[in-house]
C-alpha cells in the first residue's frame, strides 16, 4: 500500500449568498496516494472546484481540513504543489520561453539551467519555433500547453488541475491527454484532476471520485480498471472502456436526473 499524500477529511464549505448560508461542499472525505492520478467528477455546481481550491489553499474550509504530506493546509499552498487553472493564466506580457521560465526565475534557478529546462519543456510540448512568440498570437490549446509546461518545469510532486482542458475543442483536448499521460508516465506526480467530462476522467485517472449535486458529497469512489500505458485514442474503442463508462454514467445519471 502506497502512502497517502493528500488526505481530505470531512471537508465542508458554506458560502453566504443573499444572507443565506449555502453549502457548496458537505463532509467530503477521501485520500490520494503517492503517484496516483485521481479525477474529481460531478455535475456542475457540485463543489468539485471548491474542493480543489481548498486542497490548494486558495479557499479556507468552513469545517474539516486537508493534509498534504502530513501537514495541514492553511492559507498558502505547500511548495511541492503545482496548480493548472481552467482559465488562461499565461502571462500575456511574456514570451512563451519566458512564461515557462517564470517559476524557475522565482526559485532562483541559475540562468543556464533555466534555459536548458525551458528548452527541454518546449521540446516536450511541441512548442518549438514559438519560443519568442507572445501568448496573444497562440491558439487556446498552445496557451494551455504553455501553462502546463510552466507548472511542470518546476517539478511539483503534486499537481492540482482544475478543468485545464475544459475550454478546448475535442481534437486539441485528446492531443493534450496524450501529452499529459506521457509526461505523467515519466514522473508519476500525484494528480488531482477536476472535470465534468466523464470520458476525460476515465481516460486519464486511476481512480474517480464521483460527487453528488450541490451540496457536494462524495457519492462513490471508483477504481478505473484500465491497464497502463493507455492509448488515448484506441482506448475509447475497447469494451473495457465502454464498461467503465457505462458503470459511471449510471451513477452520474442519477445525479443529473434528481436535478430535473
Amino acid at each position: 500500500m502506497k502512502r497517502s499524500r493528500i488526505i481530505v477529511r470531512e471537508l465542508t464549505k458554506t458560502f453566504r449568498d443573499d444572507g443565506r448560508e449555502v453549502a457548496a461542499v458537505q463532509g467530503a472525505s477521501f485520500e490520494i496516494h503517492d503517484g496516483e492520478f485521481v479525477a474529481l467528477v460531478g455535475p456542475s455546481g457540485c463543489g468539485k472546484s471548491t474542493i480543489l481550491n481548498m486542497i490548494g489553499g486558495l479557499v479556507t474550509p468552513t469545517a474539516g481540513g486537508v493534509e498534504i504530506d502530513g501537514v495541514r493546509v492553511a492559507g498558502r499552498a505547500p511548495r511541492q504543489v503545482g496548480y493548472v487553472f481552467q482559465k488562461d493564466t499565461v502571462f500575456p506580457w511574456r514570451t512563451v520561453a519566458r512564461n515557462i521560465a517564470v517559476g524557475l526565475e522565482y526559485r532562483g534557478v541559475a540562468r543556464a539551467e533555466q534555459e536548458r529546462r525551458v528548452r527541454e519543456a518546449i521540446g516536450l510540448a511541441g512548442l518549438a519555433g514559438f519560443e519568442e512568440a507572445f501568448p496573444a498570437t497562440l491558439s487556446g490549446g498552445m496557451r494551455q500547453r504553455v501553462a502546463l509546461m510552466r507548472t511542470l518545469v518546476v517539478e511539483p510532486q503534486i499537481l492540482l488541475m482544475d478543468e485545464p482542458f475544459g475550454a478546448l475543442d475535442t481534437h486539441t483536448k485528446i492531443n493534450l491527454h496524450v501529452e499529459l499521460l506521457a509526461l505523467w508516465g515519466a514522473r508519476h506526480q500525484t494528480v488531482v484532476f477536476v472535470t465534468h467530462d466523464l470520458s476525460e476522467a476515465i481516460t486519464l485517472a486511476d481512480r474517480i471520485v464521483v460527487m453528488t449535486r450541490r451540496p457536494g458529497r462524495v457519492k462513490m469512489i471508483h477504481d478505473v480498471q484500465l491497464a497502463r500505458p493507455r492509448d488515448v485514442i484506441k482506448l475509447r474503442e475497447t469494451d473495457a472502456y465502454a464498461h467503465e463508462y457505462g458503470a459511471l454514467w449510471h451513477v452520474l445519471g442519477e445525479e443529473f436526473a434528481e436535478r430535473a
Partner: protein
Amino acid sequence: MSDRARVWLWRLAILIVLLVAWEWLTGIKAISRTPGLYWIDPFFVSRPSLILKRFAHLASDQVRLSIWQMALSTVQSTVWGFLVGVSTGFAAGLLLGRNERLASIFEPYIIAFNSLPRIALVPLITMIFGFGLLAKIVLAWTIVFFIVFFNTFQGARSVDADLIHSARFLGGTDRQIMRSVIVPSALAWTFASLTPSISFALIGVVVGEFLGGESGGGLGYLIIQSLGTLNAADMMVALIALGVIGIAMALGIKQIEKRLLRWRPEYRSRT
C-alpha cells in the same frame, strides 16, 4: 499610391490651402482704400509671411531671449514635470491599488485635492517656489500625478486574481509577484494616461509661464509679452512652437508605448 501616402498628401494639401487662404484673406481689404478694414484683420491673427519674419527675428541673436531658449525652457519644465508626475503617480497608484486599507484612508484626500482647479494653485505655488523652473515643474506635477495615479490605481486593482494565484503556486514571493505580474499588468493602464498627461503637463507649464515673467522664460512668457505689445505675430510663433512640441512629445510616448506593450495584439507590427 499607398493609403499612407494618400493620407499624407491630403494633410499637406489642407496645410497649403489654409496657409494660402490665411495669407490672402489678411491681405485684401474689405472696402478699398479704407485703412484697417480687412476681410480678416492681420492685427488680430497676423499673416503667415509676417509670422515667418518674426520667427526668423526671434530665432536670431538680435534678441535677448531667443525662441530656442524659450522653447527649451518650456520643454525642460514639461519633461521634468511629466517624469516626476508619472513616477510618483505610478508608485502611489501601485501602493494604494494593492492595499485596500490605505486606499480607503486616503480616498477623501485624493478626491478633494484632485477636484481643486489646478489653476487656483498657481499663486500659491509661485509664492512657495518663486518664478523659476521649479514652480513650473511643481505645477505640471500636481496635474500629471493625479492622471497617472488614477489610471495606475485602477490597473493595479483590476489585475486578474488567477494570474496572482498562479504566480504564487509557481513559487513567487510578494515582491516577485509585484514585479512580474502586478507592474506589467498595471502598465497597460498607466500608458493609457501618458498621452493626456504630457498635454496636461504642457498646460501646467504654460500657465506657470504666464505668471512667471522673464526669469522663468518659456513660450508662455513670450505669449504674455506679446499680449503686452499687442503683437499677434509673436504670439502665433509661440503657439505654433507649442503645437510642434506637443506633437513631438506625443509621438515619443507612442514609440515607448509600442515597445513596452509589444505583447498586446494591437501593438504587434503589421506586416
